[in-house]
């Protein structure tokens, strides 16, 4: 039992932050909610599937469950969560100096805004690829889709983000010339 807990602790320490990041990007920010969902996913793993799943599979299981939870959240229209999240975000203790904090926040906001323009399935596939470095086959396992769909989704996501960025940079260029 103890060794099972040890193994679980290792898995948790290794993947909880990545799962939070994945969910945060998937949900368009809302860090506290992302952390809750990540915790809930691990809780479910610990309660139900831990010990029955091969360790190598646990990671994919977690991402699959977490993503389903995120989809449920999309379906709820829950302004109260957003309001609460906003307050928690404001109250969050900062470890950086204000300039660094500002820069990180700006960068994060830009990434989130960019990702929100994608359909959810493309966003999930792209995040699993870029942030979690899963292979197409592994992503297919997590999202329950074929490898070729993963490939197409990722390509489309990239192409669409690229187009969006090039439009934005075009606008800013025009604005600069105008000034």
């Amino acid at each position, binding site marked *: 039992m103890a060794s099972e807990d040890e193994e679980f602790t290792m898995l948790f320490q290794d993947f909880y932050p990545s799962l939070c990041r994945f969910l945060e990007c998937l949900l368009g920010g809302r860090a506290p909610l992302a952390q809750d969902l990540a915790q809930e996913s691990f809780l479910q793993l610990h309660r139900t599937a831990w010990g029955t799943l091969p360790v190598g599979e646990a990671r994919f299981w977690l991402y699959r469950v977490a993503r389903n939870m995120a989809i449920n959240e999309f379906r709820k229209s829950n302004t109260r969560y957003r309001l609460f999240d906003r307050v928690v975000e404001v109250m969050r203790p900062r470890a950086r100096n204000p300039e660094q904090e500002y820069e990180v926040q700006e960068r994060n906001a830009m990434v989130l805004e960019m990702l929100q323009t994608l359909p959810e399935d493309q966003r999930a596939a792209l995040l699993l690829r*870029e942030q979690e470095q899963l292979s197409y086959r592994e992503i297919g396992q997590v999202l329950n889709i074929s490898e070729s769909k993963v490939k197409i989704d990722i390509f489309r996501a990239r192409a669409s983000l690229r187009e969006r960025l090039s439009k934005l940079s075009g606008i800013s260029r025009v604005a600069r010339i105008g000034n």
Partner: protein
Amino acid sequence: MNCSFTEKISSLIDGELSATQAREVERHLLTCSDCEQLRADFLNLRSQITSFETSLQPEVQNRALKKILAGPRRAPARGLQWNFGTQALGFAMLLIVAAIIGFVVYQKSNNQRGQKDVAVVVQTPSPVPAATIEHGKQPNAKESPEPQTSPNKNNEDKSPRQAPNKRPIVREPKPGEQFATIPEPTIPGPVRSADAETMTAMHFETSERLLLAFKNVRLDEPTAAEEVGYERKRAKQLVYQNMLLKREADAAGDVQISSLLENLEPILIDIANLPDRPDENTVRAIRERVERKNIVGLLRVNSMALARALD
């Protein structure tokens, strides 16, 4: 852009093409500037997406782990926060929220006045400022109920990267330290020539692609021997380059880069020495080592950091 290679470029940067296809696309890239631009743009997107930092705090992580390990519970932890259901509670919560916002705004306006004099704002209960967190000393491990229970949870524990960082940005964010402050990529004291840094960045990028492609080689397919042969050849070329760059990094005193190159070297050598038809166990052992040491992630972060520094 109507080039027929566009989709393959996406797969190329993911290391998902077979050796033959990868060669074909790489050859095409030499002649098609549009596709080369597309590849650069895709890599730039990757860099932006991976730069996202979660705002997770170590205490939150430790609390979550404690809750989960405390045993099975009827109500999920999240439910405890929000399943109150009654309107009265909702209203009360709104009032509290409004009060908090008022307090925060008041405090902020007060703080802004004195901010210039404050060198560092540390409100976190974390005992170590995030910028000083070292591998193997994750703050979250401190409060963990069983900190000693993860002897190999962090591959970096064994890694020579524990040496003081000269280039702080180049670390792969590992669990528990995503929130560590990453200092600005100031140009480090010991000077390495821009050429060497460019070479190193390119070397990291090529090695990353090689390892990704190697990860995706399927031994049960008929083209496996050809693919292994191709990866082996590429690995041979990279081994020499790796040795030279390591020597250069050592001479420049760049411990960070040097230790990454040191970790990469045996893996490249192993791939370069693979037989024509390697058995599955050998390939799996190499893949596991790459995974365990998180080499691909480190290569990616380092090549991006170097490229950013060069910009």
